[in-house]
C-alpha cells in the first residue's frame, strides 16, 4: 500500500463514519464506484472499527504494568507446548504446567526466567539437568522428555506430577511414621538409581520431592547434580565453591546441605544421604535439624553441632527410625551409610517390622484404624484484635460445616451444637469425645489488613493424634479458595472416597465475588442472632450480596430465612412476609437446584403458608437427600409430619435432628412436639422440661408445656408456667394462651379481660387472629371462634398448620365449618 492509496481509503472511511448506518451502504457504493478493492478495504476498516471500540483505550504504560503484574506465561506457546499455568518459581527457573500439543499430554515446563535468559552459566546448568535426568529411568524420578531452545529461551519439558511437594506436607507438625518410612524408601530407591549411574543429586530437599495423588514419590530437579567422572561444566561454578567464596551468594536454602558441601569440600554420593537424613528428620519432628538466623549460622551448625534428639519432638518415633536418621546425619561421611543400598535395606526392614506389629499387610498406614465417619468442626477462634471480624471466623466455620455436611458418608455435627464451644478454650479431643465424634477440626483465624491467617488441625478423638494440620496465609480475597481447600483436605484426610459429584459439591462456589461472599457471611452472622433487629441487619447484608451477584443462590436462601424468622418474631403478618420469602427461595432454586437449604425452606413455606402438603413433602425429602447431616432439614420435616398426624415418623425425624445436633436445645425440645400432638402429654412435658432445664428462657417451649398441662386439666400449673414465661413481656402468644386457659377453666371474667386486651392491641399491632379464636373456643363461643378462624385462614396463621391435630380445636371438630375449613386447607378429614 502506498500513502496515496491509504489516504483515499482513510478519507472514504472517515466520510462513511460521519453517516449513519442506514445511509452508509449507499454512500459507500457511490464513493467506491468502479473500485471493488477500495470498497473492500474500507469495509474491512469499518468492521475493524466496530470491534476496536475499547482497543487501546488504556495507554501502553497500563498494558506494560499489567504485564508486570501477571508475570505468568499462561496462554502463550513455547515450541509445541501450550502454557497453561504457573506451577512454581525457583531460583533456577519458573515451572509451568503446559500441554504438549503433539502428544496431547500434560507436562511440566521449566523455563529460565527472562531476566536470567542471558546467563550462560544457568543455561548450561539447565542443559546439564536435562541431560542428567533424561539418563535416569526410574519410577521415582520425574522423567525428562525434551530440552530445547526457542528464540533464545531455554526450556526443559518433563513429567508433570500431580500432587503435593513434601514442603506442603511439612507444616511444622510431624508426619505419620509409616508415611515417612515410605517416602524415605522411594527417595532412596531413586537415589540408588542415580548413584549407580554416577550421578549425585546434591540438592535434595522437600521442595524437590513431590508426592503424587497416588502417593508415589517423585524426585525433581537435578539442576545442580554432579556427574562423575565427566564433569561437563566448570567446577568453579559449583555451589560448594560459591559457599567457600561467599556464603551470602548461595541461591536457595542451605539447610539440607551436608557438612562437606557446606564447607566447600569435594562431595560424593554420600552427600545425598545426608540431605535425605535432614528431610527425614524434618518429617519426623516437624522442624529442621540445623537452623539459624542466617546462612552462616546454619552452615556452622551443620558442620559442627549435633541435632536435638528426635524423641524430644516426637515421642512416638520408632527407635529404629531414629537410629537410621542419625546414621544419615553423621558429620563424618565415613560413618554414614556408605551407600543408598544400605539405607534402603534398613528402611525396608523397618517397614516390614511395622507391618508385622500392626498385623496387617497394608502399607502400615491403615493399621487397624477404623474409618472416621463422624466429625465436629469447632468454631474457629477469632484471633484478630478487631472483634467485628468475628463474622469471618464464624462464617468460615459455618461454610466448612456446610460443605462437609453434604458428604453422605460423614456425620457432621450441626452448627448449633458446636457453637456452644465458641469462646471456650477447649481441648479438641475432649470436645470430640463429649460430642461423640471420631474426629474434630479446630483452628484459629487471624485477620491482618488484607491478609488472613488460618490455622487448622484435624484431631483423631480416639487417640488425640493429629491427622492433619495446615496453616494458610492468604489474601482476604482468597478465603473462598481456602475454605474449599480445607474442606477437600479434611475429606481427603478422612479418606472419604468422594464421587466426582460429591467433590464438586464440596468445592462448589456459590459466588465468585469475595465481596458478595463476605456480605453473605455477615448476613448469616446476624441472622444467627435470631432477634428482630439483628435479623433486619442480616437482611440488609443479604440484599447487598445479591446486588453484587444477582446469581448468588445462597444469598437468596439467606433472604428467605430472614423473612421466615421475622414473621415469627416480629409484628409482620405472614401474608406480608411469606410471598417475599417464597420469591427468594424460588429464585435460589432457579439458580441452583442442588441447594439443600432452599428445598427445606421451600418445603417449610409450602407447609406453613400454602398448605401444599404433597408438594411440601417432596421438597423436604429432596432437602434431606441433598444434605442429610443438617439438623434443620430433619427438624422441619418433623414438624410437617407432626402436623400431618404421622407421629411416629415425626418422632424419628426429630430424633435424627437431635443426633446431628445433640446440644441444640431446639433439637432436644422438639421431640416433644409430635408427642404433644399425639396426646402423649406426659412424655411431651418430659422432653420440654429437659430443654427448659438447660435454658429456662426457652419461651415457646414453656408455652407448649403450659398447653400440655391445660390439656391434662392442670390449669393452675399451666397458668403458673405462662406467668413465668411472660415476666415483663406481653408476648401475644402467651397472653392468648392465658386467655384460653382462663376460658377453659371457667374463669370467664378473666378470659373476657384478656380478649378485650388483645382486641385493643390489635388496633396497633398485628395480633394473629388464631390467638383470639382460641379464647372464644375456650369460652364455648363457637360462632365467634369460627369467625376468627376464618380470619386466621386468610392471614395464613402459623398455628393453623396443625388444624388436623391441634387439641385446642377438639371441640370444633364435629362442626361442619371445621370440615369446610379443612377442605379449604386441602386436608379434608
Amino acid at each position, binding site marked *: 500500500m502506498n500513502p496515496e492509496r491509504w489516504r483515499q481509503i482513510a478519507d472514504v472511511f472517515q466520510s462513511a463514519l460521519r453517516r449513519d448506518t442506514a445511509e452508509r451502504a449507499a454512500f459507500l457504493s457511490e464513493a467506491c464506484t468502479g473500485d471493488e478493492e477500495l470498497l473492500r478495504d474500507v469495509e474491512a476498516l469499518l468492521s475493524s472499527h466496530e470491534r476496536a471500540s475499547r*482497543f*487501546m483505550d*488504556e*495507554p501502553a504504560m*497500563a*498494558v506494560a504494568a499489567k504485564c508486570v503484574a501477571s508475570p505468568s506465561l499462561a496462554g*502463550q506457546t513455547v515450541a509445541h507446548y501450550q502454557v497453561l499455568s504457573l506451577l512454581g518459581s525457583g531460583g533456577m527457573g519458573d515451572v509451568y504446567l503446559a500441554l504438549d500439543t503433539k502428544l496431547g499430554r500434560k507436562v511440566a515446563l521449566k523455563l529460565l526466567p527472562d531476566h536470567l535468559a542471558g546467563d550462560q552459566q544457568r543455561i548450561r546448568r539447565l542443559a546439564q539437568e536435562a541431560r542428567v535426568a533424561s539418563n535416569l529411568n526410574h519410577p521415582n524420578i520425574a522423567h525428562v522428555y525434551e530440552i530445547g531452545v526457542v*528464540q533464545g529461551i531455554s526450556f526443559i519439558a518433563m513429567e508433570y506430577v500431580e500432587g503435593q511437594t513434601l514442603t506442603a506436607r511439612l507444616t511444622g507438625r510431624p508426619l505419620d511414621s509409616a508415611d515417612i518410612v515410605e517416602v524415605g524408601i522411594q527417595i532412596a530407591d531413586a537415589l540408588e538409581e542415580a548413584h549407580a549411574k554416577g550421578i549425585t543429586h546434591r540438592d535434595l530437599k522437600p521442595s524437590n520431592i513431590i508426592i503424587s495423588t497416588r502417593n508415589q514419590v517423585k524426585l525433581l530437579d537435578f539442576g545442580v547434580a554432579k556427574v562423575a567422572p565427566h564433569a561437563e561444566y566448570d567446577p568453579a561454578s559449583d555451589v560448594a565453591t560459591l559457599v567457600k567464596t561467599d556464603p551470602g551468594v548461595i541461591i536457595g536454602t542451605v539447610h539440607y546441605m551436608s557438612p562437606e558441601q557446606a564447607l566447600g569440600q569435594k562431595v560424593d554420593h554420600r552427600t545425598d544421604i545426608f540431605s535425605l537424613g535432614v528431610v527425614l528428620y524434618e518429617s519426623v519432628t516437624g522442624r529442621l535439624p540445623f537452623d539459624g538466623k542466617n546462612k552462616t549460622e546454619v552452615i556452622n551448625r551443620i558442620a559442627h553441632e549435633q541435632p536435638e534428639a528426635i524423641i524430644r519432638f516426637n515421642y512416638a518415633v520408632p527407635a529404629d527410625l531414629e537410629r537410621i536418621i542419625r546414621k544419615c546425619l553423621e558429620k563424618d561421611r565415613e560413618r554414614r551409610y556408605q551407600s543408598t543400598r544400605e539405607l534402603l535395606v534398613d528402611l525396608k526392614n523397618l517397614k516390614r517390622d511395622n507391618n508385622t506389629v500392626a498385623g496387617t499387610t497394608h502399607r502400615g498406614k491403615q493399621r487397624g484404624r477404623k474409618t472416621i465417619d463422624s466429625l465436629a468442626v469447632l468454631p474457629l477462634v477469632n484471633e484478630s484484635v478487631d472483634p467485628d471480624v468475628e463474622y469471618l471466623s464464624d462464617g468460615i466455620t459455618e461454610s466448612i460445616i456446610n460443605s462437609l455436611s453434604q458428604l453422605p458418608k460423614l456425620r457432621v455435627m450441626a452448627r448449633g451444637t458446636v457453637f456452644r464451644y465458641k469462646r471456650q478454650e477447649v481441648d479438641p479431643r475432649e470436645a470430640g469425645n463429649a460430642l461423640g465424634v471420631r474426629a474434630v477440626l479446630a483452628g484459629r483465624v487471624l485477620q491482618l489488613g488484607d491478609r488472613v491467617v488460618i490455622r487448622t488441625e484435624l484431631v483423631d478423638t480416639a487417640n488425640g493424634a493429629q491427622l492433619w494440620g495446615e496453616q494458610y496465609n492468604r489474601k482476604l480475597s482468597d478465603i473462598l479458595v481456602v475454605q474449599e481447600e480445607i474442606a477437600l483436605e479434611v475429606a481427603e484426610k478422612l479418606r472419604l472416597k468422594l464421587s466426582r459429584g460429591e467433590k464438586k459439591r464440596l468445592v462448589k462456589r456459590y459466588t465468585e465475588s469475595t465481596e458478595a461472599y463476605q456480605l453473605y457471611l455477615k448476613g448469616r452472622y446476624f441472622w444467627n442472632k435470631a432477634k428482630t433487629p439483628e435479623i433486619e441487619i442480616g437482611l440488609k447484608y443479604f440484599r447487598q450480596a445479591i446486588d453484587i451477584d444477582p446469581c448468588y443462590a445462597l444469598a437468596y436462601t439467606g433472604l428467605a430465612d430472614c423473612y421466615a424468622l421475622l414473621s415469627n418474631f416480629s409484628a409482620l403478618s405472614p401474608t406480608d412476609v411469606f410471598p417475599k420469602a417464597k420469591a427468594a427461595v424460588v429464585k435460589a432454586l432457579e439458580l441452583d437446584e442442588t441447594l439443600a437449604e432452599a428445598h427445606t425452606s421451600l418445603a417449610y413455606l409450602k407447609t406453613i403458608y400454602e398448605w401444599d402438603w404433597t408438594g411440601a413433602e417432596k421438597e423436604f425429602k429432596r432437602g434431606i437427600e441433598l444434605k442429610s447431616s443438617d439438623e434443620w432439614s430433619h427438624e422441619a420435616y418433623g414438624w410437617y409430619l407432626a402436623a400431618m398426624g404421622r407421629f411416629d415418623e415425626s418422632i424419628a425425624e426429630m430424633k435424627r435432628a437431635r443426633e446431628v445436633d445433640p446440644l441444640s436445645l431446639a433439637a432436644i425440645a422438639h421431640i416433644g412436639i409430635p408427642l404433644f400432638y399425639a396426646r402423649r402429654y406426659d412424655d411431651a412435658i418430659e422432653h420440654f422440661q429437659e430443654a427448659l432445664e438447660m435454658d429456662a428462657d426457652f419461651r415457646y417451649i414453656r408455652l407448649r408445656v403450659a398447653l400440655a398441662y391445660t390439656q391434662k386439666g392442670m390449669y393452675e400449673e399451666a397458668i403458673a408456667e405462662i406467668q413465668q414465661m411472660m415476666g415483663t413481656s406481653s408476648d401475644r402468644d402467651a397472653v392468648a394462651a392465658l386467655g384460653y386457659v382462663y376460658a377453659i377453666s371457667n374463669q370467664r371474667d378473666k378470659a373476657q379481660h384478656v380478649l378485650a386486651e388483645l382486641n385493643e392491641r390489635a388496633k396497633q399491632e398485628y395480633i394473629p387472629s388464631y390467638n383470639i379464636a382460641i379464647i372464644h373456643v375456650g369460652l364455648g363461643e363457637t360462632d365467634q371462634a369460627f369467625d376468627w378462624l376464618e380470619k386466621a385462614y386468610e392471614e395464613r396463621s402459623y398455628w393453623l398448620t396443625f388444624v388436623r391435630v391441634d387439641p385446642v380445636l377438639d371441640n370444633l371438630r364435629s362442626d361442619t365449618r371445621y370440615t369446610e375449613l379443612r377442605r379449604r386447607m386441602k386436608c379434608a378429614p
Partner: protein
Amino acid sequence: MTTEAPKSITELLVAWSEGDRSALDRLTPLVHAELRRLARSYLRRERQGHTLQTSALINEAYLRLIDQKNVRWKNRAHFLAITAQLMRRILVDYARSRQYQKRGGGALQVALAEADSLSNERAPNLVALDEALTMLAEIDPRRSRIVELRFFGGLSIEETAEVLKVSPTTIERDWITAKAWLHKTLTSKV
C-alpha cells in the same frame, strides 16, 4: 524510587533529546520502577474487585515520569513528542523481554486464537503493535505520531491536538482511523 524527584527524570529526558544516548539507560530503570508500582496497584485492586480509577493511577505514573509543568522548555510540543518516543522505546523493549515469540514468524503473525482475544481484549500485544505502528508510519506519519503520543505518551486528545497544532476533532478522527487500521493489521492472518 520515591526519593527520585520528577525533575531529574525530566532532566534525563531533556538530555536524551539533546542527543545524550546514555540517558536512555538511566531512564529505563525509572520507568520500570513506575511499572512495578502500577502493577502492585493493579494486583491489589483486582484482587479486591475494584477496577475503578485505573486512569487516575496511570495519569499519576505519567506525571511522575514526565513532569510537563517543570519543563522550562522552549518547545513543549517537541518535548512531549520526544518523551512519547522514549516511552515507546522503553515499554516495547520491556514487553519484548518478557515475551516468547512463536517460532518462525515476526511479531505480526498472530494465531487465530490470539486474534480473538485481541479483539475481545483491550490490551494489544505491545511488540506487535510497535511493529504495526512502524508500518503505519511509512504510509501515514501523522497518524502514527498521534498513536505514539496518545498510546505511549499518555497524552489526551486535547494535549495531542496542542502538540500537533490541529483541532481536537481532527485528532479524534485520526485516532479512530489509526486504531481501526492497527486493529485490522494485528488481527489479519499474514
